[in-house]
């Protein structure tokens, strides 16, 4: 009986140590959330021709600045100065290689920390690239997206790509 109690105590201690370690790791992972939904560009048709027949399509489309937001949180228990990097990439479902999709940050958001970089349009590619950096918690960081290089050389179809933001502790 006494031996069992001793074993139980040992196990409990082991569990506590593991949970503490996991908790420490959990805190060290910065988090990111987006709000504002997806960006569906209004259907591009003949009304988008620059000057009717004989002209090309309007090449560039933008969403409303700030319609899509990022909230970033640094690891509260992490090692100061609690800085992080946010990368961006896209994963195409159906996409035309001619399209140039870009994103920029149109504001700093709010919160205890600060953000830096990413204020000019950056083309989103299929591989992660640094978008901006920050420290501590920032919320409602406004973004703006731009689709460029639209032309009549792109065949009629419905195209979509998924833009992924990743926050990395640095």
């Amino acid at each position, binding site marked *: 009986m006494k031996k*069992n109690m001793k*074993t*139980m105590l040992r*196990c*409990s201690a*082991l*569990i506590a140590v*593991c*949970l503490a370690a*996991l908790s420490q*790791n*959990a805190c060290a*992972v*910065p*988090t*990111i*959330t*987006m709000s*504002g*939904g*997806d*960006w*569906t*560009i209004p*259907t*591009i*048709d*003949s009304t988008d*021709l620059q000057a*009717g*027949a*004989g*002209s*090309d*399509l309007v090449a560039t489309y933008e969403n409303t600045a700030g319609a*899509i937001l*990022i909230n970033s949180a640094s690891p509260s228990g992490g090692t100061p100065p609690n800085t992080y990097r946010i990368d961006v990439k*896209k994963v195409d479902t159906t996409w035309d290689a001619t*399209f140039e*999709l870009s994103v920029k940050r149109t504001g700093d958001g709010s919160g205890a920390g600060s953000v830096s970089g990413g204020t000019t349009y950056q083309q989103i590619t299929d591989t992660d690239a640094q978008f901006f950096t920050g420290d501590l918690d920032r919320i409602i960081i406004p973004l703006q*997206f731009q*689709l460029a290089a*639209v032309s*009549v*050389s*792109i*065949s*009629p*179809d*419905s*195209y*979509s*790509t*998924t*833009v*992924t*933001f*990743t*926050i*990395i502790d640095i």
Partner: protein
Amino acid sequence: MKVLKTSFCVIVLLFLFVSAGIILASNTDNHTVTVTVTAINELEIIGGNITLTINTATAGSNPDDQTDSTTADLNWTTNEASKKITILSNILAASANFTLTAEATSISGGTATAPQTPTTTAADFITGVATTIGTCDLTYVGSATAAEGTGSDAHTITYTLTAV
């Protein structure tokens, strides 16, 4: 010993659950960008109507042809492949008093066919049109012989951007 085994299992399970929780804690988020492009096939005649007046001749010859290639242009835009532009008139060529021909000149965005005598059956006017913007001058030539006398033909010419 049994307690130890049970405890070990509990630890492992807890570890897996919490680890999964950390992964799901999400250091990524995403959204979708969707673009829909519809079929675009636009064609437009730029410029006014054409009037060709045949009123000169060299003695001993038929009247001089009259040509206009500056009044009207044809513009088109398509984002589809395998297109052509056809021409037709509301007057059957054989019923016309005089001869009218039309040709696409100074063309871009397609290939002009030889000069066409428009009639009530559509004929190819420009071929090789695909995912492009294009333009050309519309060059009309009116011809008459002395034997055809005087009079006038008023053609309504229709150009159509259509599938090959």
